[in-house]
């Protein structure tokens, strides 16, 4: 085989290439996250991690589970479609997270191939234990005026008043019950 005469150095070189390729495959196996490419050119597990983010607004159905009296009153009034947490604030409060996520790129990368995933963020829910967390109700005047202050920029059909002229400084809930704001509903009890 005269073709391969003096070709030993080429074979050694080819061997090196094969070895490097094998090392590449091994490193790649450990470095590329398992779920990468599951649905496309991204980490499939990322969706689960994003979905694990704790919610803070519990939704009006949760409130209505206990406060059915308010729900009944609200359903008959003009604010039927204004959900509870619009005014009362979020029902769930997160406690301080155990650890901040690593900031530098290298640590972040190590964290990304960690199969355990991020630590869970603890939280308290008003619905689980009403005393543990009470949703913050801002001043009624602020809540009412935020939506109902007259402005030509607002849709014409939306009920609006100039607060100073309308009530002369009397708080809104003297005449209007926020849960059912129509005057014939009787106002605050």
């Amino acid at each position, binding site marked *: 085989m005269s073709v391969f005469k003096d070709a030993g150095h080429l074979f050694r070189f080819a061997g090196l290439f094969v070895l490097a390729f094998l090392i590449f495959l091994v490193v790649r196996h450990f470095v590329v996250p398992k779920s990468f490419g599951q649905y496309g050119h991204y980490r499939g597990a990322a969706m689960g991690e994003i*979905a694990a983010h704790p919610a803070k607004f519990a939704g009006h159905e949760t409130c209505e589970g206990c406060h059915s009296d308010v729900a009944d009153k609200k359903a008959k009034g003009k604010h039927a479609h204004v959900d509870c947490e619009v005014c009362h604030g979020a029902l769930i409060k997160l406690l301080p997270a155990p650890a901040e996520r690593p900031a530098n*790129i290298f640590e972040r990368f190590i964290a990304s191939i960690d199969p355990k995933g991020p630590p869970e963020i603890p939280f308290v829910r008003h619905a689980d234990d009403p005393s543990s967390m009470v949703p913050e109700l801002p001043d009624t005047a602020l809540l009412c005026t*935020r939506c109902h202050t007259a402005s030509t920029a607002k849709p014409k059909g939306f009920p609006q008043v100039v607060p100073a002229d309308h009530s002369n400084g009397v708080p809104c809930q003297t005449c209007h019950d926020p849960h059912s704001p129509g005057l014939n509903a009787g106002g605050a009890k």
Partner: protein
Amino acid sequence: MNLSRRQMLILLPAAAIAWKAVLAGTPEEASNYTMSEHWWGMLIDIPKCIGCGNCVRACQTENDVPDGHFRTWVERYHRSDWPMTESGEVTANPMIDPEVISPDGGKEGFPVATDESGKYFFVPKMCNHCADSPCTQVCPVGATFISPDGVVLVDQKYCLGCAYCVQACPYGCRYIHPTKEVADKCTLCYHRITKGLTTACCEACPTGARQLVDLKNPKDPIHEFMKTHTVQVLKPQMATGAKLFYNDLDGSVR
């Protein structure tokens, strides 16, 4: 053990099928949410928006959005009447040059307007969750993607913070998170919609101007709504397949 060729030919496919069953046996998460059954979007009913800023505040609370950055924000447009000189000459085009304000993203509402002329309206903006999104195409590492249920998400563990996607978004909906140093954007409250809740902004909207829609759900009211209303998307000429539908959108909105 002696196996005949006949036995072997029967056993091997059976073993293969059994192995497949073993592999498929344990799903990662026991959840009743199936991605392939949803295709999420949002409807924004402009005539209903009063510019209270509830959605912006709720989004910030729900998603820990840092001050000065927005996953959703509200703009107030004022399209004035056509300015004319006495001889009837038009001096400016309010369709091209409307007055737009968004103080702190509309978080604390808007200043009172007293001007009766022209047309005022509010335009809530957020990620359009495009079906053919330019932002996901430019990511060099596969950190941002369109999920199988039609939500554009960022894998913040994988993101390098190069900000190509921030530049690629035609709607300006992305930003670099100041402390995490990665791209951040609206997730369409993915953690809520996968659990059967609506998004925080929809939950907080007092007038129903924002509605989460599931285009794959045949019972979703969006289908009837689209038949009976003039629904548009922003920048349709970009062909991004935006799924943020605006009802009664004024021609001056960019």
